[in-house]
């Protein structure tokens, strides 16, 4: 009679376990009891705006990036770029100390959101930087704007971030929208006298936007895109796509990848079919980045690509950045992701130096109103939607002092995100897809 049945014992144990587990959550996040003191200090100093010469306080930065999972390499690079800037220049600007908390979202928007909530509500950060992927970026931007915290995007390329979903708290600081960065590629291809083009892009939002940018640039300048091919993410054998490109017989082929393995994989098939000398080719930012150059070596000398970052640009700030990165990372040359993180940090630093400690939408407004003359991406200003208007480079792989670099051979200055349209007209159109390429 004294015995209880098995399942009720299980229930009571469950109670204990559940209580213990829920208790874990508060316990582990109660440590930020110290930060409020600093944040209080920070808000005191908001009044220091009147004396921008010497503001004091702390700018707490929450940095969300996929450090684990499928996008770990790009995510880590994005963090490295941010840290690199503060390592070189010190994390104190104009009396303001920049303090960074890095959080991993594994590329999953639900985790991104929880991390953003944690940073804002528990750590009480002044600004959230990141994350990297389009869907995570859009989810976080929506949340941060709803609670009035600025959100800077070093790498995310989703068009909507600064178009249909634009707001006063979101800046695309270090990258360009997917269509914006590739539009000049189309213009350049048409200027080279090519009349027909064929495109190959990954079959999801980033690929649709990249191809749409190229296609509109090309067709607005008299060219015609005769065929568009799409490959699913995760494709590793590109030989069928390369033969499709070949049989399309267009004057120039435009190929985009979102970085990582597809770049080298495509190049192997392309070179393997011996097309390098017969088929003119233009790649996007990430398919011809340093990872591809390291993997392919001198085989890809002379290949053209279009991007808002060119590590081979002859400018002192780029040389300084490359050298500093190489020194810390085994002589490697920084990629677009590193550049994005670094540029974002440099923008925050410049704004702090000029305005003292600014937070909230004032920080975003200050970034958006500043002209960044010496950015490693080239002279950058921002449009009303907080999207950069900056140069896009047509680059060629060249060997410089024994290193393979993407050297700009033509520069399109002050490229905006509207592809030659009015903002209203552009945003009234549907999002780009396989069916709608503008």
């Amino acid at each position, binding site marked *: 009679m004294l015995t209880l049945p098995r399942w*009720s014992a299980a*229930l*009571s144990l469950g*109670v204990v376990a559940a209580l213990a587990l*829920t208790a874990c*959550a508060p316990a582990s996040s109660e440590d930020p009891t110290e930060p409020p003191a600093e944040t209080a200090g920070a808000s005191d100093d908001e009044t220091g705006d009147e004396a921008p010469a010497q503001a004091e306080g702390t700018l707490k930065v929450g940095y969300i990036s996929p450090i684990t999972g499928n996008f770990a390499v790009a995510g880590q690079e994005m963090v490295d770029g941010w840290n690199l800037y503060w390592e070189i220049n010190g994390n104190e600007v104009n009396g303001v100390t920049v303090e960074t908390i890095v959080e*991993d979202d594994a590329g*999953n928007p639900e985790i991104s959101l929880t991390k953003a*909530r944690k940073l804002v509500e528990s750590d009480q950060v002044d600004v959230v930087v990141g994350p990297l992927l*389009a869907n995570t970026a859009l989810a976080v931007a929506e949340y941060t704007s709803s609670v009035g915290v600025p959100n800077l995007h070093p790498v995310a390329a989703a068009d909507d971030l600064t178009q249909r979903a634009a707001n006063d708290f979101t800046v695309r600081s270090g990258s360009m929208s997917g269509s914006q960065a590739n539009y000049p590629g189309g213009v350049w291809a048409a200027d080279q006298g090519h009349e027909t083009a064929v495109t190959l892009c990954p079959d999801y939002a980033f690929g649709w936007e990249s191809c749409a940018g190229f296609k509109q640039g090309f067709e607005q300048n008299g060219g015609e895109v005769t065929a568009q091919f799409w490959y699913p993410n995760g494709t590793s054998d590109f030989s069928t796509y390369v033969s499709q490109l070949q049989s399309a017989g267009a004057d120039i082929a435009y190929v985009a990848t979102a970085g990582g393995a597809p770049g080298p994989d495509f190049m192997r098939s392309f070179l393997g079919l011996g097309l390098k000398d017969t088929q003119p080719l233009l790649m996007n930012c990430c398919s011809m980045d340093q990872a591809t150059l390291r993997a392919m070596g001198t085989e890809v000398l002379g290949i053209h690509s279009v991007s808002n970052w060119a590590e081979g640009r002859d400018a002192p700030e780029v040389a300084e950045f490359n050298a500093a990165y190489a020194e810390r990372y085994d002589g490697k040359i920084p990629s677009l992701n590193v550049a994005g993180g670094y540029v974002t940090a440099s923008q925050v630093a410049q704004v702090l130096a000029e305005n003292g400690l600014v937070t909230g939408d004032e920080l975003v407004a200050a970034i958006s109103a500043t002209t960044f003359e010496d950015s490693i991406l080239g002279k950058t200003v921002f449009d009303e939607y907080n999207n950069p208007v900056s140069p896009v480079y047509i680059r060629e792989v060249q060997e410089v002092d024994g290193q393979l670099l993407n050297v700009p051979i033509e520069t399109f200055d002050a490229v905006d995100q509207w592809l030659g349209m009015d903002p209203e007209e552009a945003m009234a159109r549907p999002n780009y897809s396989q069916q709608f390429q503008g």
Partner: protein
Amino acid sequence: MTRDRKVGLGAMALLLLALASYPYLGTSGYQVSIASTVLIAAILASTVNFLAADGGMASLGHGAIAGAAAYGAGWASLQGHSMATQIALAMVVGILVTTVYGVLSMRTNGIYFLMVTLALGMVVFGLAYRLSSVTRGENGITGIERPEVLAEPWAFYLFLVGCFAVTTAALWVVSRSPFGATLRGIRDSESRMRSLGYYVPAYKLGAFMISGTIASLAGLLAVWHTHFVSPSATELGRSVLLIVMVLLGGLGTTLGPLVGAAIVILVENVVSNSVERWPTVLGLIFILTILFARAGLVGSAAKVLRRRRRGTDAGEPDTAEPAGLTTTTTIP
């Protein structure tokens, strides 16, 4: 048995009280938000638990069912439809997808069932990813609101506690009903049940529909929590994590899904704050559980307690022993 049931109900009431009082213990919005995530995952995991434990059907597609329901709400919100329409559409889409799953999988079992649900999950993911005119592709749909009454995080959390209690009770009742007994019979020997005159596929379809309907509700709750849906909500990885939650907590236990969901969500969101290699932590927890507590944390704890009591009691045979995914058929 009546007294035991009373104790069980008392324990359950205590747990609900503890869960419901959580927002009043000086917790921050962030902690309530994490607890909400745990509850939603627990509801979803309990549907997988029900299907796997009673029906012997391990599904790798429940994440996609929930995701489809979330997309239903998201699409309706995008078109500017009212809240009632959003709710209705979420449930309709979720149940529709469940029906497709159910009809296609009701004649299969074991690994074949697993593969059918896996394949259908990939189809849903593919549609979410590629059918951008409806789903907006990888960008996902943002700005999905929840009803005004639930706008406050604590109100929503309490609503979730209610939902969790109701769905858990509902699944418990179904599991203890003649329908549940028939399902377990089918799980143990399909041919025997068939020869007894049961139309097996109908029972399987029924179980799948019950499970899928609650999974759709979980999907709607999830989108109300995050205000956002993207293809990653329908990814295979989400469905696999549901199985992990169920196995961690204990297959066939009433509270196993809650415990399992709590562990997975806390590792994903809280442990990852301080441990960079948190996927390893999750993997280790899972491996250790499988090695040393095969019935899951709740199941094994119950076993230990039971063994200890056996000394005073002449081992009363168990009626609802938690069964492994691969059940052995023993005919007495």
